[in-house]
């Protein structure tokens, strides 16, 4: 019997397992598929503070940013790149709003005037009104990040402290009265002192099996990947201000904004789209076309660069765009760490760290009240 069963071997589950094992708990991670096979495997690997509104999510992002840096220094192996983010504005109005937002965020940043943009990004299009540079923004390779966290956890905190079992589907929960005492799986029942729901986009489904509601829905996002370039064209994570407003948007319709960055493999990743279409994986050429148009508008040098593939993923989002982190009072023994929408990679270490504090009965470094699982009124899940 483990102290903790983590359901989901994505980056959030991996971080929960890592920090729980580091805190001295025996952890078993279960996933019906491989490591990082869900939303983690379809992400860009953003570790951003720049796109967060001031408030609890920014606090979480700042903690996470520090923890990613630590993890990269201690174990690494997941292409951590502290390359910084550059948010650009098309018009002076937008630039003004960006500057205001940066001041409210109160994080290290540098306001970049229009004529200073090319010093940071030589290939940027002309005619932009300016931008804000966030040196803390970073990128990781998300699949490797999840896999390496699990590996470091298994190697670092004593033999058997962190076990991963793949191809195991959780079908329900074992109960003792109200209390969740373990999981029912395709491989039989497994008991644990606590169960962590890190099932990402499928977290609502899993919660329902414990009889509790979590209004987590998929929001589809496409990413375009270019041919590997012989020389890096783009140095930072560069995105337009529209990305910030789209992240916080409630629209069900398609929203796109240009998010462009290079990778250590030489490719350029181009996002970002958001739309609510359920779990439909059908590629939408119109969406890819818009992503390409926006990227080319931002970086004209990309015109003749070829896209060689695209992929899509389903970001798990809650109506208030905040993740669900903490113990569920409606089902004692069940904890949640899911619903991070498009920020799961970035927010994973802080989520794992805080949840490990909860699991070991310590006071979490951040107030988890804004992320409490029972904050949604019924009927608010649409």
């Amino acid at each position: 019997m483990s102290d903790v069963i983590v359901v989901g071997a994505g980056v959030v589950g991996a971080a929960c397992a890592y920090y729980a094992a580091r805190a001295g708990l025996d952890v078993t991670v279960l996933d019906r598929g491989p490591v990082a096979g869900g939303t983690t495997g379809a992400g860009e690997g953003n570790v951003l503070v720049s796109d967060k509104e001031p408030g609890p999510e920014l606090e979480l992002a700042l903690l996470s940013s520090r923890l990613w840096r630590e993890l990269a220094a201690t174990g690494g192996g997941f292409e951590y790149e502290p390359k910084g983010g550059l948010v650009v504005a098309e018009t002076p109005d937008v630039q003004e709003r960006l500057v205001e937002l940066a001041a409210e965020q109160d994080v290290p940043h540098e306001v970049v005037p229009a004529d200073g943009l090319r010093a940071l990004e030589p290939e940027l299009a002309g005619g932009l009104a300016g931008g804000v540079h966030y040196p803390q923004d970073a990128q990781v390779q998300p699949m490797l990040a999840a896999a390496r966290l699990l590996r470091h956890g298994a190697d670092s905190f004593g033999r058997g402290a962190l076990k991963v079992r793949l191809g195991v589907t959780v079908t329900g929960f074992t109960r003792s009265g109200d209390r969740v005492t373990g999981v029912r799986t395709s491989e039989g029942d497994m008991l644990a002192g606590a169960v962590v729901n890190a099932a990402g986009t499928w977290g609502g489904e899993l919660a329902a099996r414990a009889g509790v509601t979590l209004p987590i829905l998929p929001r589809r996002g496409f990413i375009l990947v270019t041919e590997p370039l012989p020389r890096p064209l783009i140095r930072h994570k560069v995105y337009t201000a529209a990305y910030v407003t789209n992240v916080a948007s409630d629209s069900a319709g398609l929203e796109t904004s240009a998010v462009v960055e290079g990778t250590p493999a030489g490719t350029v990743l181009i996002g970002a789209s958001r739309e609510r279409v359920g779990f439909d994986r059908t590629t939408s050429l119109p969406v890819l076309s818009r992503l390409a148009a926006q990227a080319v508008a931002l970086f004209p040098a990309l015109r003749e660069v070829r896209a060689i593939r695209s992929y899509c993923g389903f970001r798990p989002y809650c109506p208030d765009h905040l993740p669900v982190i903490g113990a569920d009072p409606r089902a004692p023994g069940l904890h949640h760490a899911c619903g991070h929408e498009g920020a799961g990679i970035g927010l994973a270490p802080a989520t794992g760290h805080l949840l490990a504090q909860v699991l070991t009965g310590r006071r979490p470094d951040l107030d988890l009240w804004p992320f409490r699982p029972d904050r949604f009124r019924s009927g608010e899940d649409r």
Partner: protein
Amino acid sequence: MTVYDLAVVGGGPAGVAGALTAAQRGLRVVLVDSGVRPGGQYFRHRDVPDEPATKGFERFARQVRALEDRADVMTRRQVWAVTREDDGFTVHCLGGAAVRSRRLLIATGAHDRPLPFPGWDLPGVLTAGGAQALLKGHGVVAGRRVVVAGTGPFLLPVAAGLAAAGAEVPGVYEANGGLGLARHPLLALDKAGEAAGYLAALARRRVPYRTRHAVVAAHGDRELEAVTVARLDRDWNVLSARRVPCDTLATGYGFVPQLDLGVQLGCATRPDADGTPVLSVDAAQRTTVPGVWAAGEPTGVGGRHLAEIEGRVAGLSIAAARGTAPATRAAGVPDVLLRRRTRMRAFAAALLAAYPVKDGWRGWLRDDTVVCRCEEVPLAGIREARELGATDARSAKLLSRAGMGWCQGRVCAYPVACLAGGGQAAPRRPIAQPVTLADLAELTLEEPHD
């Protein structure tokens, strides 16, 4: 823009037969092909006639001429995507061209399936189809001293062609064996003469044909200088090995059907007899997506005869379906054609069974043997991905980059799936050919419905 009744993608035996059959029945047809001229991989040819002529070429050339009189034949067009529209399909070609049609026939053929081994990325190592394309398409003999190795009957015409063109062929190494010519599945049909003819041609030129042998390593500094030829047991484990000097190797272990466009459109796939994913089609060659037919290798590797029959069945079915309610199972298709198709498919299944890929090839690899050529992922990289939690080809790709590069896994998907476990999945390539961001950005498309 013209809206055709039928767009055919692929100008090999299946596509040309399908297009011609439909055009002869009055449909407005366009055929789109990536080559300089129709032909596909089998009827690849130059302007000047082949010497000796490829079997069946005259017949194919007549079909192409007939087609050119009745339909639009667009060559040098690489299709990178097909999308569904309200009234049919748009076929998107590189360079910005697009073709609209009410129905679609996918006849995109297949390409070689190589297996990795140490040194297989040295220049001078070619796929068997590559060596054949050089010879038939460009009149270039792939090398002076050419070893041919792999499995399947396709090795025979490749070796015979090279020998006839003046290459020294130290040996043809067939990894399977034990059937003997008397029980050879090629004898089951009218192909017997063809196979026997190639074998006789090889014998005349004193080219050894060795079964249960394979090339298990290639050597050279910057280019191929020699290969290690091994004698194999039934499971392809190496029994003994020797070095054979050569400047060129032509190798292939079967074929990979090109399904990208069908998968883009959501057509269902099924595992073929050997586990290879192929498009599911009904008796009328219809895929599971209304308005989309498929013929030839994408529905299961079976060679040019089966491809042509399937193309004709598809053409007849498409013509019968015009303007009416969904056609019955194979309306308008003569029984004799359906019976021939049944027989050819049985033959194709027998070939797959006679020339399987056996697990022993994994033992040919060393830790540093490149498996994914594009991203230069060695065997050790795939193993590490498995240790990190990959359980199938997709997760192995995500954790190792194998299959993420330029070729999008076309070359390594099969070996990676074998090494990673979890079986072979249908390829998901929403972008089937590299397309410039400018072309992608300037697509004229309806906005998606919210």
